[in-house]
Every structure is written in structure tokens, then in C-alpha cells.
């Protein structure tokens, strides 16, 4: 069993689907932060069989967690201060996401317009459907 120590201040992102931790690492742009990050892949889980865990030691205001809900709203976000869990954050699907996913519609203006951000709006909360702001193509459909 691999042991990773406690963090003093930051986040523990638990119940990440096995294998998805690197996606989250990239979306949260953790590579750009000068902080300690532990990526635990394929940890044993009673609930999920296997799961990934991310531990990020940083100021808790430093991360935009909205994007997490878009990736997987079943992730548990534990907020750590002084080495203890002080809060658990419920993830709510963001109404809008910017430059998280790209519009794949080749007929969309985003495919040619210089430096145009890829913006998606939550079009159907129940079905978790996001649509491109410009062409309304589905960006994600579960």
C-alpha cells in the first residue's frame, strides 16, 4: 500500500474515475502552479472498485473548481486547512465553460476566427448537455 502524507492546506479530490486524474490535472492547469501535487491512480475503492485521487497543496482560492463539475460531478472535493477537512464542496454543473472543451463542428466560426474563445453553455441541465455559444453544436452529451 502506497502512503502519501497529509496536506496542510489545499484540496483532496476524491472519487475521481480511475484513469481520469491526468485530465483533471490538465484542466485545472496544475502544471502552472508552484505547489505540491500528488496523483494517486487506481487506488482501491469500496464504492468504485478503483478510483483516482488528487491531492493539491495550495491556497484554497487558487483553483477554479467549476470545471471539475463539468468533467465529473461525482468527484468529492475536500477542502483542507491546518491538516483537517474543513469543508466538502458540492459540485454544481457550471452554466458556462470557457476554453475547457473545443467545438468540433468544422462549420463553426470558432474553427477559423483568430483567438476566439470556445464557450459552451449548459443547454440541458438534466441531460448535462452543453452547446457551443456560436453554432449550438452539442459539446457533451451523456
Amino acid at each position: 500500500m502506497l502512503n502519501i502524507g497529509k496536506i496542510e492546506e489545499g484540496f483532496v479530490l476524491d472519487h475521481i474515475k480511475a484513469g481520469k486524474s491526468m485530465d483533471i490535472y490538465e484542466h485545472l492547469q496544475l502544471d502552472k502552479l508552484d505547489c505540491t501535487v500528488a496523483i494517486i491512480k487506481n487506488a482501491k475503492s469500496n464504492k468504485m472498485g478503483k478510483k483516482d485521487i488528487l491531492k493539491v497543496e495550495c491556497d484554497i482560492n487558487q483553483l477554479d473548481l467549476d470545471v471539475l463539475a463539468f468533467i465529473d460531478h461525482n468527484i468529492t472535493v475536500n477542502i483542507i486547512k491546518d491538516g483537517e477537512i474543513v469543508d466538502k464542496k458540492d459540485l454544481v454543473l457550471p452554466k458556462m465553460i470557457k476554453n475547457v472543451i473545443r467545438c468540433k463542428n468544422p462549420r463553426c466560426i470558432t474553427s477559423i476566427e483568430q483567438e476566439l474563445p470556445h464557450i459552451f453553455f449548459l443547454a440541458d441541465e438534466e441531460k448535462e448537455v452543453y452547446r457551443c455559444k456560436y453554432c449550438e453544436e452539442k459539446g457533451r452529451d451523456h
Partner: protein
Amino acid sequence: MRHLMSPLDFSVDELNKLFDLANDIERNPAKYAHACDGKILATCFYEPSTRTRLSFESAMLRLGGKVLGFSDAASSSASKGESVSDTIRVISGYSDICAMRHPKEGAPMVAAEKSFIPVINAGDGGHHHPTQTLTDLLTIRSLKGSLDNITIGLCGDLKFGRTVHSLIHALVRYQNIKFVFISPVELKVPDYITEMLRTKNIPFEEVIRLEDVMPNLDMLYMTRVQKERFFNEEDYIRLKDFYILDKAKMDLAKEDMLVLHPLPRVNEISVELDDDPRAVYFKQARYGVYVRMALILTLLELAQ
């Protein structure tokens, strides 16, 4: 400042005001002949669409305004690689309102975000063509007296037909509408539309043969069945005549059933029907100018 990007940008009340204005323009053109004196409409057409461009230009000229613009991307700075955002910021200094057609979906919205003048989406790829939908609604309201209580047949290519999809979305906002979809199986209306109608409890039926439903319709919206939409020539030859409106089929229709078509027509409506008072597609093209006149006045905040 307002723009027009989608047919649903205006509420039903706002559309009623727009259509009242269009009807007033139709009745009293002289009253509006100088309403846009000193104003300039830019027609930025990144792909050719002569009919739409000319109807916008006619609308502005009939309001006493002037027009400038380009009619394809090759004759614009887009051919040098200029972005839509930059173009509209320049055009904003040259004109007071802009009608933009672009092959890329969402391009007019990008323009609207950066523009200092109102932008009208004059068609963005297969996405929206709101002034066509406004034209269709004005034609129906003017000739039927109302947009409520209508059984409307939509015939032809219902799968890819952008005008048909927009018209359905626009009509579901009115009372007691029934849709009859007439198309080959290959070109059926997409599932997301029939699902939407079921969710809203709006009655519809899907049929293959036009003759079967002609007597029930108050309105028939014809579109073209294009050969290239079929997987094989055999199916096309077998089905194409089902979707050609001729005198024999019109004889089955109600005396006051109206035939609409977004035009251009190729062969889906026989020319022998052109003199039938129920064939209103050329009148519809005229309403296209009135509705654009009303729209220009509304977006320029010159409507009284």
C-alpha cells in the same frame, strides 16, 4: 443596442409589433419612404445569396437609406485573412446597421459581440436564417389573419431544411398549431424536433404522400427534395413525384389553403399553379422586404 441572431430572439409580443409595423409599411409605403434618410446599411455577404442580399438592399432603399457592401468573400478583406471581429469594427464606422451572411455558423454572433452597430444574421451556414422565418410568419399572419389555429403541412426535405426547422420552432409559440410532416423516410424531420413537440404536447403527424393529407391543411410549406440527399437514384426516381405540387394535388386542397415556399423553386411546384390565388410564394418574397424594412426601423430605433 439590439441585434437579430436567431428567429427566437424576439418575443411573441415583439414580433406582433414588428409585423404590425410591416403591415403598416405595406399599406402606407410613402409614409416610410424617408424614414432612414442619411442611414447606411452594410450588406456583408461572405457567400453569394442574391435574393437575400437584394431584399435587404431593397428594404433599405425603400426606407430612403443607402447601402454598401460586398457579395462574396473573394471581394472582401476576408480573402486577405481578416477576422470577422476586425471587419465588423471597421464596417461599424462606415455604416449604421449591418446584414451579415457567412458560411460559418455563429459568425454573425461574433460580429455582434464586437460591433458598434446592430447586426442582422442574414444566414450563417446551416444554422439560422432568422429573416426568412420572420418572412414566413409575416406572410402567414397577413394572409390568414393570425398565427394561431393553423394546421400546417411541411413538405420535402425536412431533415436538412434549415427554414423548416426554424419555422417549426417559431410556430410552437402560438396556440392550437398542428404540424403535418410530409417527406420521404430518408428526409424525415429530425428526432429532436419530434421529441420537442411531444414534450410540449403539440400534435403532429408524419406521412409520406402529399395527396393523403392535402384536404386537411390550412397551409402548405413546400421545400425542394434534392437528388443528392438520396443514397441511390432508384429511391429518388421512385419518390420525387410525391413531392411535386401540381394542379391535380391542389384540387384536393381547401379553397383557402395557402402554398408557401422560401424560393428559389426548381421543379417542386408546377408553374401551372402560379396563377392559383392560393399560391402565395411570390407574395411571400414581397413580405420579405416589408419585414426587413420593419426590422431595420426597429433595430435602428426609428420605429414609432
